């Protein structure tokens, strides 16, 4: 049985004093934290990079919570979901991805997801709810793309299951591509705007946090020059518990090393017309 959740007390003094002034102080403090027998409130958080923590309104991804990545007309939702997975995954948590057969796994690795602790269930079919419920029992984070016909009751049961099993549930409602969506089984949408209306209906239940990519641009690419670089985007989060209830954060994916908040970034001003001069040439040596 899990111990009861307790309020986070002050860190124990003696341990901190032992570590103080020594080179190994930080490590020692972290060891002390990990060997403590209690489950503290902050242990109930799965670590995430700082800009994402700002979106969530908590220092990490809370266990037992449900985060919905809403489909919007702007691309970037999949990268955002992978970036949210990266922190927990690299700190030892098991992650599962359900119902996303065309997930780019190289991109996942580049965004920081540890593939050795990643499990995929690409085609859950009609057993979507049963598969997600099972995975919530064993994995720490479950990313799921629900089918369009998910019943409200099933969604509610999954949210309850996540809360009960102390796992985080990320619902990737999916972004909409102007070209037909690449996921097999997704209905082809040929006209822009047509699918955007329907996208957020995929998850009928309330969630702790709803994230939506509202704007973005492409860097590093011109007309025949450069190549695609990191993607600056603006994400709006609607939170139920944190204040203010709605924040807008600008970040760049993949996150730069160190994971700093990218507030200083100039606002995306349309498309970059020139390839950036520092883009290295990638003409392969084998090109003939």
């Amino acid at each position, binding site marked *: 049985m899990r111990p009861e959740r307790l309020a986070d007390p002050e860190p124990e003094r003696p341990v901190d004093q032992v570590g103080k002034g020594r080179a190994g102080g930080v490590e020692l403090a972290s060891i002390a934290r990990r060997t403590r027998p209690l489950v503290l409130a902050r242990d109930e958080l799965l670590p995430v990079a700082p800009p994402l923590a700002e979106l969530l309104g908590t220092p990490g991804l809370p266990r037992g919570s449900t985060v919905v990545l809403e489909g919007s007309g702007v*691309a*970037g939702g999949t990268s955002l979901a992978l970036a949210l997975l990266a922190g927990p995954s690299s700190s030892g948590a098991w992650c599962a991805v359900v119902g996303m057969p065309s997930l780019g796994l190289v991109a996942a690795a580049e965004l920081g997801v540890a593939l050795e602790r990643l499990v995929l269930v690409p085609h859950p079919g009609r057993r979507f709810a049963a598969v997600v419920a099972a995975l919530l029992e064993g994995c720490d984070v479950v990313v799921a793309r629900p089918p369009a016909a998910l019943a409200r009751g099933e969604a509610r049961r999954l949210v309850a299951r996540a809360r009960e099993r102390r796992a985080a549930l990320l619902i990737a409602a999916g972004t909409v*591509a102007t070209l037909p969506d690449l996921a097999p089984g997704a209905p082809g949408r040929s006209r822009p705007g047509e699918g955007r209306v329907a996208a957020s209906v995929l998850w009928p239940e309330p969630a702790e946090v709803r994230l939506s990519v509202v704007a973005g641009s492409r860097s590093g690419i011109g007309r025949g020059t450069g*190549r695609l670089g990191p993607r600056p985007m603006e994400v709006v989060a609607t939170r139920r518990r944190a204040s203010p209830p709605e924040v807008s954060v600008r970040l760049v994916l993949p996150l730069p090393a160190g994971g700093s908040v990218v507030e200083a970034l100039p606002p995306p001003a349309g498309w970059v017309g020139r390839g950036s001069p520092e883009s290295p040439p990638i003409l392969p*040596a084998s090109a003939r």
Partner: protein
Amino acid sequence: MSPRPPRTLVVWCPDWPVSATGRPAEQAIAVVAGQRIIAASTAAREKGVVPGQRRRQAQACCPELTVLAHDAGGEIRAFEPVVRALEAFGAPVALRRPGWAALGTRGPARYFGGEAALTRAVAAAVADALPALARAPAGDPAPLAGPWWRVGIADGPFAATMAAQRGVVVPAGRTASFLAPFGVEALGRPELAELLRRLGISTLGGLASLDEADVLARFGPDGARAQRLAKGLDERPFRGRPPVPDLAVATELDPPADRVDAVTFVSRGLAEALGGRLAERGLACTLLEVEVETGDGGRLSRLWGNDGVWTPGLVAERLRWQLEAWLTGRPPDGPPDDPGGLRPRAPEKWAEVGIAAVRLVAVEVVADRGRQLELWGRSHAADERVARVLARVQGMLGHDGAVRPVLVGGRGPAERVRLVPFGDPVPDGVVGADLPWPGRLPSPSPAVVPADPPRARVLDAGGAEVAVDGRGAPSAPPASIATSGGEPVTVVAWAGPWPVDERWWDGTGHRRRARLQVVTATGEAYLVALERGTWLVEGRYD
């Protein structure tokens, strides 16, 4: 001079991949792996089908040829009875591949009263192990060379293999003279054999007669090893696997159980008994077979592997999920084939007849060395929990319903990932992802990579499809992109094309592609590739 290698008996099954299919040898059958023939039945060989041929060539030689895909797991399973039969002789058995097994003869030969008698006994046991296959010609009850097996004895595994091909027993100390007339190709080193032939050394005897120091200087360590083999001095004694003691537990249910929990309750006791037997011998089971017999004599079985700890709870839990999966049948949208087990005939029917017997067999055992646990944290318990949960998901969706990704070498985003069913070991021959792959697309990679890339049209300002010439230059700047049936979308930025010419030395694997990144007016970015005149959407930067 090093001592003579130990006397070794080899059972060799030529074209085992064909024999393992269990089809009659009169049929023209060939087994292919990667478009090349790796084994052919006698009937097929008579028509001119030889291993190493391309599949098309083989079909041209022999139009009625049945071509089957290589099934490594099936071959190993089919060979298991032969290995068990050999283990009954009490000496360690070594396996190199399905279809080849070696046995140390020292003890058994004395027991059977000589090597000739032992060889006959082994041949008889091997023939009996697979009655479905054995059709030895009438007369001699156990010939050393049957329709699908060969048995031979010599000094060391290499010479014994050659002896087995001839079906003879080479007397001790006469191995070198037995090997002398064989061609140098028998060494299994094609490059060395070709070189030796050009130098005028065509037989093993010729190679053996050369000066050792000269061979080492001219052909390197591998050549020196080959010469030792040719002299009948096998350099490495084989390692046998310990004979698997009788590690099966079974129980009968009378009357047949018609409920899943009744069966799982019984399986708990069985698992405890099996665990006790394994612990007595200091072994851990890495592959467990669970067999269920239904009331009307039907059988269902499945093999489960894990890292060696089968607690009673774990066995019971897996058996329950397995039974539930069998009972409910396959979900209609699940994978079409189930590689791991057999399908029940009619689910309703077998719920009616009930389950009459449960049997647990430790198929593969290793010495129990314990497991390395993590010093800190709860990671170990978490791993076990994840494995349990995924076994349940696999019970619902089939073995390949839950997979884990492995990064491999490659250039395109789809080529760089291989999906392995959860619980399976990472297959051999995975090329390291950390090697340099010139021409690989740099980070960031597309976050959406379709398994089946849809076709697209990349058009220039005039509405004509963009082509890429031999130098990698586009015929015109791309102006719009459309997928089948969709309206074209304006392209506002693009980069590339980057040509990739892969495996140009290889007739079958050769691919020429040119990749292009495009950004549409709606802000989406795609990776498209032109191959054989068709643009395919390889990925979306989402």
